């Protein structure tokens, strides 16, 4: 594309939202994506290893050529970083749950009010769509039984300020009509077939066209819609290596720099290319957006870029029942319990590989050293015959994911690893995260609440993975924080850089904290709003 109006870096959860909204307004948008462009119908094999292997799965953070190693990060305090490259980004492997953030986490903490966000939530919820699940699979119904047994009120509301349990609002089409004998591969099947493969990428219904695949990842929603305007071009295998900018206050904004374009590297050929544009949108996520900013040499006067990383300090509690649970059936998550102030917990269906790793593969503690004064029976790592026996109970197991409202500490951050060699895209990021005591207490509280719910549901035995030291990063946020004070934030309330004119951010890195609720919908709502801000400020 010659002379785009806007370049969007990253075609994951947020970038395509901004791209589509701008393209709809007639602007020419060039969207770059570091990873490949997969076809759900042919490339999503539904194999746990084939799709999700950290080193060479199709949805890994790495180049399209899977014989090459993944892209690297230096890590301090965190082990597993679950992030996907490719058009659709991490929405390819997320479970689609799309709650709004907790109301108390916005007011007085963000430069926007919750009321400001609601119209943008509604816009994205209508477009995807985000649908309240109208039935629960067995695993989720068991979770719901436990919630009700401990006195949690059922809610179907999108706005949460008090403890409740909820059927989920998911970016997944309604459950398909599947009468006895239905051929699930026939063209007449519409909606979610409850296959349980949300985390491996959703190829179902098999016969559905791209835009009608059940899970509403951005590669089947916002990306096709952006392309359909005729104003958007998507370039996969394009790893952004620098923001092009001019120093000095040429535009009269008072800012020390002005973005003018992007340089990227073709990951297949190694060729370097550039495009100039009227505005640039960074949407590569909470690790790559600050990395790109720092590698570009952009102004960072207050050393705010990359700081205040949060990730919901996730953990897993597994309950083993004497009844069939079928964790592989249904949408991966259909029921949740929300506890503003602490975070959220939700039922999670896993395949056997993920289940075995959650139960035995990592974590703090050892299975044969039961914790004192805690309600779970075992914690940490399993091995040997005992591990195999426990894993064998997969079909009677229910995993509950803990997603903590972790504190934003300024020293949890993304920087450049100056003690590691650079890769082909420049100095590599260093990700540092150490949970604060308050964050750890909240995680522990949620783990105990998970056990309480599972016990109320009739569980026989519980195990806490206890990812206290082997920290699992999924909901990575906050490193390009939105705020009014440049000393503690990177972008203003319109998502534009405090110090860089015409440079915007449209991914979860802008979030100052969502309270533990899954962040994608909030990032998408802000991305839609960012498009509006870009258009008003520079293309009005």
């Amino acid at each position, binding site marked *: 594309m010659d002379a785009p109006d806007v370049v969007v870096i990253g075609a994951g959860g947020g970038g395509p939202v901004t791209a589509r909204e701008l393209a709809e307004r007639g602007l020419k948008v060039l969207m770059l994506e570091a990873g490949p462009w997969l076809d759900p119908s042919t490339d999503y094999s539904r194999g746990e290893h084939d799709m999700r292997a950290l080193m060479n799965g199709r949805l890994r953070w790495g180049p399209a050529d899977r014989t090459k190693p*993944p892209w690297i990060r230096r890590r301090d305090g965190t082990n597993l970083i679950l992030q996907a490259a490719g058009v659709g980004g991490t929405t390819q492997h997320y479970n689609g749950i799309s709650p709004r953030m907790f109301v108390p986490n916005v007011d007085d903490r963000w430069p926007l009010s919750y009321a400001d966000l609601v119209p943008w939530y509604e816009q994205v919820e209508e477009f995807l769509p985000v649908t309240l699940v109208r039935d629960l699979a067995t695993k989720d119904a068991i979770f719901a039984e436990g919630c009700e047994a401990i006195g949690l009120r059922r809610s179907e509301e999108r706005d949460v300020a008090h403890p409740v349990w909820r059927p989920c609002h998911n970016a997944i089409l309604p459950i*398909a009509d599947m009468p006895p004998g239905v051929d699930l591969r026939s063209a007449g099947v519409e909606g979610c077939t*409850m296959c349980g493969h949300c985390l491996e990428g959703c190829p179902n219904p098999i016969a559905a066209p791209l835009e009608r695949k059940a899970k509403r990842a951005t590669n089947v929603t916002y990306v096709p819609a952006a392309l359909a305007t005729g104003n958007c071009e998507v370039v996969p295998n394009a790893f952004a290596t620098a923001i092009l900018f001019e120093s000095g206050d040429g535009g009269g904004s008072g800012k020390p720099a002005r973005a003018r374009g992007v340089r990227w590297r073709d990951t297949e050929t190694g060729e370097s290319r550039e495009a100039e544009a009227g505005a640039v949108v960074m949407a590569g996520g909470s690790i790559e957006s600050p990395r790109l900013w720092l590698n570009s040499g952009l102004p960072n006067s207050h050393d705010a870029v990359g700081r205040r990383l949060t990730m919901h300090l996730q953990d897993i509690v597994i309950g083993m029942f004497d009844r069939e649970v079928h964790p592989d*059936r249904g949408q991966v998550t259909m029921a949740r319990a929300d506890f503003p102030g602490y975070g959220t917990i939700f039922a999670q269906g896993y*395949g056997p590989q993920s289940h075995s790793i959650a139960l035995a593969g990592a974590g703090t503690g050892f299975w044969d050293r039961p914790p004192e004064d805690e309600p779970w029976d075992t914690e940490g*790592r399993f091995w040997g015959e005992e591990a195999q026996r426990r894993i064998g109970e997969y079909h009677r197991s229910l995993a509950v994911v803990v997603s903590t409202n972790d504190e934003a500490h300024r020293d949890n951050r993304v920087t450049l690893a100056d003690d590691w060699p650079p890769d082909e895209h420049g100095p590599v990021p260093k990700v540092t995260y150490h949970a604060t005591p308050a964050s750890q207490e909240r995680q522990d509280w949620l783990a105990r609440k998970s056990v309480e719910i599972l016990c109320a549901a009739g569980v026989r035995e519980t195990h806490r993975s206890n990812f206290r030291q082997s920290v699992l990063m999924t909901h990575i946020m906050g490193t390009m924080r939105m705020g009014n004070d440049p000393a503690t934030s990177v972008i203003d309330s319109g998502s534009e850089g405090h110090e860089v004119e015409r440079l915007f951010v449209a991914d979860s890195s802008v979030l100052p904290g969502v309270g533990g609720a899954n962040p994608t919908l909030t990032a998408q709502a802000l991305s839609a709003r960012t498009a509006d801000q870009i258009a008003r400020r520079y293309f009005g």
Partner: protein
Amino acid sequence: MTGGHGPMVRTMPEEASLVTLRAAIEAIAPPVAEQPGALEFGAEGRVVEQVEMYLPGFTDMLAALLDAFAMDVRPGTAFADLTPAERGEVFRLMASEDSHDLREAVDAVFVFTLGAVYSEQSAGPGERPAAWDRVGFDGPSDGHPDYRTGL
């Protein structure tokens, strides 16, 4: 674990390192009634592939670490010559160290071993993994009309 330290240069682990790795795999996922162990599933090759992609040369490094900690469990004994219970003690010692890298080394061998047993890679093309029958997993699915079974 998202990668190691730079461009991949393929290396072949030392044979002695593979002996040590096999012992670790066997201790993590041994045979149980009705199911072969990870080694019988051919896990060794798949674990080496993942470990070497994570960090070229890491198989040798991992073996050296296991042997070093084995000395603390039974002096003068290589890891591969320890009993399964003693190998578990080595895992404990390594995972208990105040070292991110050591914990990650343990994570790596556990995660890759379990993946080799319980994912589709434990079977040949078009074959159904034996582990799936034991754990009650239906396998890749077009959908589950019976998603409320048991309620």
